[in-house]
C-alpha cells in the first residue's frame, strides 16, 4: 500500500527535523506508541498499539532512521510483529522550509500490513493509515508551537 501525505508545521525545517527524529518527542506524538528505546545508532525498539479507538492491534518491533540529512530529509523504516500480524513501513520524509517559521513535510512511502488485519480490513487500512498520520502531525504541530514559544 502506498502512503503519502503533505503536512505543514509552523516552525523552521531544522526544528522540524529535530522534532521528528527525537525519540522523546516521538514517544509523545506517535499515536499508540507505548515505548521507544534506543538499541543502537538510529535504531529503536518500539512497542506500539496501532489502530483506531475501537479496533486495535499490538505490535512490537523496531524503528530505524536512515539517510538523514539534517533539515532536509530522512527515511523512517518501521517493522512490528504482534498476535494479529505485522506492519512494515518505509517512508521517505522530505522537509521544505517555505517561510521563516513554516515547513512543508512531504511523506512518501510504502506500507505493508500482514495477517488478520489485512485479511479482513482491506477496505479500512488506508483510512487508518491516513488517520494515524494526521494524528501524528497534529501532535507534531503542537510540539512545534511549543518549541516556537520556548524559542521566542
Amino acid at each position, binding site marked *: 500500500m502506498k502512503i503519502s501525505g503533505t503536512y505543514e508545521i509552523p516552525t523552521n525545517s531544522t526544528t522540524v527535523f529535530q522534532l521528528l527524529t527525537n525519540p522523546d518527542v516521538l514517544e509523545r506524538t506517535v499515536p499508540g506508541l507505548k515505548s521507544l528505546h534506543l538499541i543502537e545508532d538510529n535504531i529503536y525498539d518500539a512497542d506500539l498499539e496501532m489502530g483506531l479507538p475501537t479496533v486495535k492491534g499490538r505490535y512490537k518491533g523496531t524503528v530505524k532512521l536512515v539517510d538523514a540529512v539534517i533539515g532536509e530529509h530522512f527515511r523512517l523504516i518501521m517493522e512490528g*510483529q504482534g498476535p494479529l500480524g*505485522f506492519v512494515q513501513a518505509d517512508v521517505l520524509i522530505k522537509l521544505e522550509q517555505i517561510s521563516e517559521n513554516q515547513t512543508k513535510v512531504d511523506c512518501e512511502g510504502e506500507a505493508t500490513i*500482514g*495477517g488478520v488485519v*489485512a*485479511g*479482513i480490513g482491506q477496505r479500512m487500512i488506508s483510512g487508518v493509515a491516513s488517520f494515524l498520520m494526521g494524528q501524528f502531525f497534529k501532535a507534531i504541530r503542537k510540539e512545534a508551537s511549543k518549541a516556537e514559544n520556548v524559542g521566542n
Partner: protein
Amino acid sequence: MTTVSETKWVGRAIRRREDPRLLAGKGKYIGDITLPGTTYVHLVRSTHAHARIRNIDTTKAENYPGVVAVVTGEEVAAAMKPMLVPSIIPRLGGELQIPTVYPLAIDKVLWVGDPIVAIIAENKYIAEDAAQLVEIEYEPLPVLEDPEEALKSDSPKIHEDWKSNVLWHGELGDGDVEKAFREADYILSERFYGHRTGCAPLETRGAVASYDDFTGLTLYINSQRPHILRMALSQILNIPHDKVRVIAPKDVGGAFGTKAPIYREDLLICYLAMKLKRPVKWIENRMESLMTIGQERDQIHYLELAVRKDGKILGLRDRIIADVGDGRTGVYLGFVMPWLGAAYLTNAFDIPNVHIDLSCVVTNKPCLSPSRAFGEFPARFAMDYALHLVARELNLDPRDVFEKNIIKKFPYVTATGITHDSGDYVGAFKTLLEALDYDRVKQEQKEARKNGRLIGVGFAMGAEMSGIGSQVFVAMENQPGYGSATVKIDTHGMVQVLEGDSPQGQGHETTIAQAVADELGVNIDDIYISYGDTFATPFASGTLGNRGASYTVSAAVLACRKLKTKIQKIAAYLLGIESDSEEFIFANREVIWKKDNSKRVSLDDIADVAIMAPTKLPPGMEAGLEATAYFEANIASMLSIGVHGAVVEVNPKTGDYKILRYVVVDDCGVPINPMLVRGQVHGGVVMGIGNTRYEKYIYDEAGQPLCTTLMEYHMPSAADVPDIEVIEYNVPTPYTPLGTKGKGEGVPGPVPATLASAITDAIDRPGFKLLNLPLTPESIWRALNEDK
C-alpha cells in the same frame, strides 16, 4: 402377477433416505464427534507470504493454564517421513520437481497461512488464547505472486533446492499442428486469464484422532477418500496398515473436491494424538480455510486457434501458465488440476491437431486444491469463449461454429488422449437452442436495442468427466479408478451395501439403494448403505470426479448380479427345479421362476438357508450371501455433456448485468434419480456463477490474502442468482450396466464462457472482448471503456 416394471426404482424422483436425520438436526458431522478426554488444536499460521523463521518463542503459550502441549515443525518432522511418499505422487510424464513437505513449517514459510505452531489445550477457547502468546520472528524474503514473474530465470527460487520455480512442465497433443496453422484462413490469438477462486464448502475441514498402543490410530476426518488417506498415513507415519483406521463421518458438509487431498494438517493431528495418547480435535476455522484450501482455477492461456473461414477449427495451440501456489498439498501437488484442464481443453469439440504446453509454476500462495469442475473452469472459459470470438471475427453465427466443431462420432479420442464414450452432443446443443428460443431472442435483441436495452444470448458446453477408469487414473494419481462395492444379505433378509467411497451430500444412500432395489427386487427400505469406515468397506479411490453413478453404482449392481447367480441356484434347489441360473425374476422380495410364477421363494427364506441353515444349501455350496465387485468400464473414460445457455441484459453505463434466463441441457446417461440430478445441476451452475462473478481470492503485492472471511469472499446468496432451468437429454452409455453416468462435478465449468459470450453478444461492439475473469461489473465497464 408381478412384473419387473412395478418394482423399478431407477429413474424415479424419490425423496432422499438420508434426509430425515439431516432435517431433524441429527446428522453426524465431524464437528459433532467428540471423544472422552478430547484436547483441542489451534494452529499458529504464518502472517508472511515468504520469510525465514528466525525464532519461535512458545514459552508463554506453554505456561498458559489449560495448555496441554505446544508443538513446532522439527519435532513433528522427526516423527515421520516427508509427506509426499511415492504412492501419492502422480506419474504424468513431463518434468516434475517435488517439494519436501512436513506438516508444520521448518525454518521457512511460503505463504500466508503456512502452519508453524500447534497449540493443544483442554478446550478450544484456551487453545486460541495461548496462540496469541506465541512469538515468531520472521526475516521477510522477496514475495513472488505473479507466475509469469516466477517463471523468469532470475527469479528467486521458492523451493531453494529446485532448478526453477516450475513444479511441472509438459506437453500434450497430437496431429500436425504446423500444417493446420499454415492452412488456416484465420488465426485467433488471445490471452485468457482465469482468476483464483474455488468451491469453499460450508463445512470446513476437521479431524478427530485418537491413539492407543493396542488398536493403533483412529482418525475421524471429513475426507472424500478415506482409503487413500489411510494408505498414506500408514506409510508416512510408519504405522502398520492394520493399526490405521480412517473413518469419514456419516455426514460431510460438502466438499466439491476440496476434501480430496492429503493435507498437512491430517498428518499433524494424527501425530499429536500419538504423542499425547489423548484424542485430539481440530476444526478448521473459516479464516484459515479461506487462506488454505479450495483455491483453484488460477491460470493464463495463450490460446491460438487455426480456423477455416467456415468456422471449422483446424488446429489449436495453447501455452498455459498455471499458478499452483506452493505445490505442497498431497496427491495433487497443485498441478494435477491444470493438467486435467489441459487434457480436457478441447472440450466437446473435434479438433484433431493440438499442441499444449503447460507450465505449473510455484508462487507464494497456498497450493491449489481440487475444486468442482476440477481443472476445467478456466480451460472451458478460454476454449468456448474463443469459439464465440471466432464467430464474431468471421461474421458467422456462433451456433453454426459450435455445430460445425462439436464431436459427432463416438467413442471419440481427443488429440490429448481423452476418450469420449458416447452421447449425442449435437442433439443436446440443438435442444438448448430450442429451449432458449434462440432465433426469437436474437429478434428480441434487435427490438430491445432500439429502446436502448442491451440483451444478449450466449452458450457453452461442458463435456465433464464421469469418473475416470484405471487406465487414466493410475497414471494421474497413482490410484485405481474402479468402483467397488460389497452387497450382503443379512440374516433378516435386509440388504447391506458397503461402498469404499465416502459421499458429502450426493445422496448415495438413495441412489445406490435405488439401483440395488431393482437388481434384487426388494423395497428401497430393505437396503442400508454403509460407508466411511476403512475397516469395514472395500478399497476405493473416494467420492470425487463424478465417480458415483458411473463406477460405484455399477459396482453395486455387479455385486448384486454375482449374488443373484448364487441366489438363483439356491432357489432352484429349494424349489426342486432343474434350472439355469438366469431363469428367475427378482421382485417383491421374492425369487420367481420365469417358467412358472407359482414357483417362488422369498429372499428371507433364502437368506435364512444361506446364513442360518447352511445344511439346506445345495451340496457343496459355500454358506453366506455376499459379494464384492470391482467395476471397471470397458473404456478409458466416460464423459457426459451439459450445454449451458443464458440470456443477459447489460447496463453499458456501469457494466452491470442481469441474468434473465439460465438454461442447462444435461445428459447423465440414465438418471437414477432425476430430482437429485437437477439438484446437482442447479448447485453447479450457482457455484459457477459465484466463481464467475462474485468470488475471488485476492492477494496484495506482499502476498497477503485479502479475502479471509465470507464478508470479503462473496459466495452468492439466494438473492444474487437467477432461476436455473434444467432440461434432460439423456443418452444411456453402453459402458455401464445401467447406462448411468456421474453428474455434477463439472457443472460450473461452462458458466464463465456462457456469461462472457452472452455479455459480449449484448454489447455487440467490434473489438469488445472479456478476456479476464472474474466478470464483475467493473471489469466489463473497463473492457467497454478500453476499446473505445
